[in-house]
């Protein structure tokens, strides 16, 4: 059988040899002839697989090295090649040619082995392609991804040992996932996600088998930090989507799956999934993370990830680390959300929580993008009336101090925040109204700004002079808002939500709604010119020129 194969393949091989010398790549016509041969149902000569498979490295090289020009042809070849091979293997798999049978003789076993080897090579080649970032954003890769999914489907239905077995080709899928995670081409990752979000089995086996490679990658020294970071990015990209997972067994059961045949029951074991999920995440979070990655993961952590974990307490270390990051003030802010979630739902105790919270009040906080998140939580933390007045006073004074250098949107948050705190902790009103202290004149502020412990800042002896400055704020509405402190505290509390999301844009938008009424007031001071010069001594700005 093998000899006949060889014989029948004589012509193309000689051709190939020639072409190998002249041009390593086959032309489309040559390729077509091979393909026709292979796809002919009567044809039994599968030796052509070898030269065809050898084409891939060449195609890859072409695609990687050359620019955009002239590549469409190579790509076309590649696509043709891949499709053909897929069809060939599809036929083989369907015929059961890749299955070892107990009864078969040695020769037959050898053929099966040979086929399997070729099939594995084909898969590996495809996966290798997925990993690469080719110079040309090739649709070839996308095709290959699709073919991979097809292969998984194929394997699931034909490669199982028994007809009635529940089977999912975990090994193939695991390899695929590993390659995707290492992929430098984010289009491939996105294309993968597109299918991924739809099918529960993909998601389950992704999480199920992930921990091991993640641990291996981290442990081995081969991968550089940048590669690990790439893996993390891909992981984040995939996992930031809402998974189909729910705590409701029946709902989960009804979710769509890629593999239509019977699937193992483990797929629907909730605790198993949660444990695997948690392990994968704990491992991936132990990777060296950049500040940006910290922020990314922290933003979704408390809402998307913690609920899917079996024991979220295991995130404690990670969150504590994040909370203590001092390079960037927004990382602790973001960690606060998840920490709160853990404290609230999982009974986590955090020592010196308020001290730490107090240290978060840095000048940057009012300029931070995440300020509304922070103040929402901070309001919650300070809502207890059992907190000591000294502590609340420190927070109030500190925020007031921050407000005198804050942006308008920050000031807008601070004012109602302080109002609510004062209303909640009336013993702090002494900072606003101290008739005894008003009689003596002092110079330095008794409040110690450098003190990190909010209980010892001596804020209660101080006064909120900063608010007086805010009453003279340049923006009329903010100034009016600040004037509430000079009025009787009649309002029970301000709804903080109304003040959290103001920005210069929204301020300007509200300006736009005002209509022109009568003449706008003009300056009556006569300036001769904007800039100072010899002829115009009476200028608006001095020390500048055009």
């Amino acid at each position, binding site marked *: 059988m093998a000899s006949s194969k060889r014989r029948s393949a004589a012509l193309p091989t000689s051709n190939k040899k020639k072409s190998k010398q002249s041009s390593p790549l086959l032309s489309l016509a040559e390729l077509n002839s091979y393909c026709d041969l292979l796809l002919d149902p009567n044809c039994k000569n599968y030796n052509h697989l070898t030269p065809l498979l050898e084409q891939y490295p060449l195609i890859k090289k072409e695609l990687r090295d050359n620019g955009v020009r002239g590549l469409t042809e190579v790509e076309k070849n590649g696509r043709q090649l891949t499709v053909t091979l897929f069809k060939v293997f599809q036929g083989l798999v369907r015929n059961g040619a890749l299955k070892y049978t107990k009864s078969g003789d040695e020769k037959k076993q050898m053929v099966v082995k040979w086929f399997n080897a070729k099939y594995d090579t084909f898969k590996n080649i495809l996966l290798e392609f997925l990993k690469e970032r080719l110079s040309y954003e090739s649709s070839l890769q996308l095709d290959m991804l699709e073919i991979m999914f097809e292969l998984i489907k194929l394997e699931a239905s034909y490669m199982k040992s028994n007809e009635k077995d529940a089977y999912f080709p975990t090994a193939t899928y695991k390899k695929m996932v590993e390659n995707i995670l290492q992929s430098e081409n984010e289009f491939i990752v996105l294309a993968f996600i597109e299918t991924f979000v739809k099918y529960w089995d993909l998601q389950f086996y992704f999480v199920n088998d992930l921990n091991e490679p993640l641990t291996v990658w981290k442990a081995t020294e081969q991968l550089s930090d940048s590669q690990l970071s790439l893996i993390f990015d891909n992981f984040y990209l995939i996992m930031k989507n809402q998974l189909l997972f729910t705590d409701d067994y029946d709902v989960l059961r009804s979710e769509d799956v890629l593999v239509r045949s019977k699937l193992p029951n483990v797929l629907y074991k909730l605790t198993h999934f949660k444990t695997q999920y948690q392990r994968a995440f704990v491992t991936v979070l132990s990777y060296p993370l950049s500040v940006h990655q910290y922020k990314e993961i922290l933003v979704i952590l408390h809402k998307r990830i913690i609920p899917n974990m079996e024991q979220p307490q295991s995130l404690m270390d990670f969150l504590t680390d994040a909370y203590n990051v001092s390079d960037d003030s927004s990382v602790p802010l973001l960690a606060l959300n998840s920490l709160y979630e853990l404290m609230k739902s999982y009974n986590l105790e955090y020592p010196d929580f308020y001290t730490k919270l107090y240290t978060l009040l840095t*000048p940057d906080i009012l300029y931070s993008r995440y300020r509304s998140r922070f103040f929402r939580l901070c309001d919650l933390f300070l809502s207890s009336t059992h907190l000591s007045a000294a502590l609340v006073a420190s927070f109030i004074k500190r925020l007031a101090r921050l407000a005198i250098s804050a942006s308008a949107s920050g000031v807008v948050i601070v004012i109602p925040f302080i109002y609510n705190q004062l209303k909640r902790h009336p013993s702090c009103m002494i900072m606003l109204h101290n008739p005894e202290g008003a009689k003596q004149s002092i110079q330095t502020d008794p409040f110690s700004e450098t003190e990190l412990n909010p209980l010892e800042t001596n804020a209660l002896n101080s006064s909120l*002079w900063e608010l007086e400055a805010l009453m003279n*704020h340049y923006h009329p509405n903010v100034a009016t808002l600040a004037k509430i402190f000079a009025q009787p505290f009649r309002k029970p509390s301000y709804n903080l939500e109304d003040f959290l999301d103001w920005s210069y844009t929204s301020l300007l938008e509200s300006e736009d*709604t005002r209509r022109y009424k009568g003449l706008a007031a003009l300056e009556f001071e006569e300036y001769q010119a904007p800039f100072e010069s010899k002829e115009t001594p009476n200028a608006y700005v001095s020390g*500048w020129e055009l």
Partner: protein
Amino acid sequence: MYKACTLASSQLKQLKAALKSNGLIGQSNGTKKDTRSSKHTARDREARAETLNGIREEFNRFDERINRTKRDFTVIQGGKFVRAGSSEHNRAAKLKGTVEKSLASQYSARQLVKNKSGGLLDRRFGAKAGKNLTEEEIMLERFTRERQQSSKSKRSVFALGSDDEDDDNDDGFVLTHSGKALASEEARGLELDEDALGSGDKRYVDEGEEAELNQPPRKKSKKEVMQEIIAKSKFHKRQRQAAFEKTQEDIGDLDDDFTDVMQEINGAISKTVKAPAFLNKTPEELEYDNQVRELTYDRRAVPADRTKTDEEIQNEREEKRKKLEQDRLNRMNGMVEREDAEADDLDDDFWAGSEDEVEGFTIKEDGDKASENDEDDDGSDNEDLKTSRTSIRSKVNAISMPLDYEQFAEQLQLLKNSTEEESFVKKVVQQYQPHLAQGNKEKMNNFVTVLYRHCLTMPKNLDVYFCLVKNLLEKYNEALVNFIRHDINGEIHKRIQANGSLRGFDLINFTLIGMLFSTSDHYHLVVTPTLIIMNEILTHFNTKNELTLNEIGQGIYIVELLFKYQKLSKRYIPETTRFIERAFIYLCPEITKIKVTDLVSVNINPSTVHATNISKSTKYTDSIVPSVLSVLVITGKTISVKDNGVKFALLAKTLGLAKEVVGLYRELLIFFELSLVVKVFTSHLLHYYPNWTELVKFHQVIDKVVHNTTRHKLALQQHRLLAIATFAPKFEENFNPDRKSYDLDVQKQEVSKMQRQLKKEKKETLKDLRRVTRFEARQQIEEKKSMYDAYHKKMHDIVALILTHEGAEKNQYEREKKERKNRK
């Protein structure tokens, strides 16, 4: 009794017992009784019914009425102890009460007078009050009354009495005149009138004549009387018509004669006076007259405006400035009544930017000012009127107004120098005065924006254009305001949002806005959004991790403008505080040596040294610092970080800003913290540049300032004490629980009180009246009774007397009879 009965036995038993005891049931006693009863059946039956009724009543408890004694006390009434409210007491009170007594006395008094004292009954027609008859009506009334009376007498034709008697009865109603019955006289008068239809003069009659005419009076029927009346009125009417016709005729005659008379008169005059005076005038005189006549139509002379002295002009200008300053101050403080707004005013709506709230902050344009502007407008229009008219006539080739900036730029290219440009603009302005054509005002508005845009291109003669814009802006304001708000500011905002860099004209725009508009206002349509944008830029710089020299320069310029904006209003701008600190940190040498703790807004990471920091080794010399920085340079190409001159210039500018801070925010209570920050930097810098004279001076100043600043603790909540709202009922001292109504409204209270009183009075009066009538009725009955008693007694006496007489006679008769019998 009731109680005892119920306790004793059942109702049926009691009834039986009662019937038995009255002998209505049970055994009767023999025949004796039967005969008796048959004799007196009728009477018996009555008695029986009576007893039965008595028993019935006794057993019907509900008909029993009990007099409750409200007050159980005894009074002495007529020498006896009587329970108050008892019938005894009442009777006695009725008889001897003061009311009763007074009623009795009144009654007796009336009785005494009744039918005994006389009064005057006025029976004259119309004399009675309420009948206000006119003279004529009285006469008519009198006449009809008399006629009716006389006709009534007809009815008595069949009366039994004689005619004379009848007449006597009517006597009161016969009208008389001078002691004689009028009827006859009237009848005669009518005849007379009929006779005198032609002459109508015979009104007065002698007595003798009258006597002659006196005839026996004849009574007329009603119909006759009415006919007479009608005839009479017709006659009078005819008379009036005749008189009118007569006068008309007379007038016509006179009119006819008039022309003749006039002719005669004229003829007479022309004969006597030959030359009339006005013909006598010389042509000169006529001319003079004409001129005089014309003069009356001339405008009345007005005293010319006195030329003002320099001092007066100065005063006027100062006054105007003062007014403007006052307006500005008002605007700066916002609307005065808004000042003490309640905390509640800042509700969610406020932040939702609702229309009302928004308007709450817009500054009301002073009515005076607007009208003043209008007047100015009109005045200048009038002044310009003549010149513009003439100029238009004189100019054959009119200049067309450029409608957008592109057209303007094209037209400018044709002109050679700036004076030509200026005159071109002026011509355009003159030609498009709003009163010259419809739509000119909009065109002018548009033209101002075109000019403003030209200013932003920073032409060489920026000053000239600026002055033009400024002058035009006093009238044409709207388009530019909207243009700046939406187009320019919107564009800058978008650029900043997209992380773009500032352009030169952005800064020029901010500068021009500061120069053109009143920046101290609490709210200003243009300035407030501009402030927001400038602060947005600063915030952008404030959050950036690395600043370039260009950005520092731009920031410094903006902060400088912001301080210029707030020169008068001195509002606090938090963003600048942070920027100034950051600018120092980005410029000072060896910033890591600064004590971080004294800074307000910036955390200095000790490890970072910025590329823009001046290196430690660079020494300061006066020549290294350029005196002026160019706006175009800082917004232009990236300045090399090696350019020490620019660095020093920026540092000097930052120091200048620090100085401004010290000047501007002196009043603020956080001034100590602000100045402390400045001091930190100056002392740090002093260490490196001890030969920088300005720095040294400034450091000394700031040192002193920091040392001298003191403040008091806040006491912001010193409000009038307010009572806690309470819903507990208040204690009212004079509250009377017996009173039915409790009305807090005083007026209502009064009204209801009056109503109650009125009702009470009415009731009492009615009661009184009833009491009096009741008393009178009682009294009359008594009187009648006594009268009848007296009568009966009298009759009885008479009868008795007669009877005694008769008895005596009878006795005598009997005796006589006896005697006669005896005689026989």
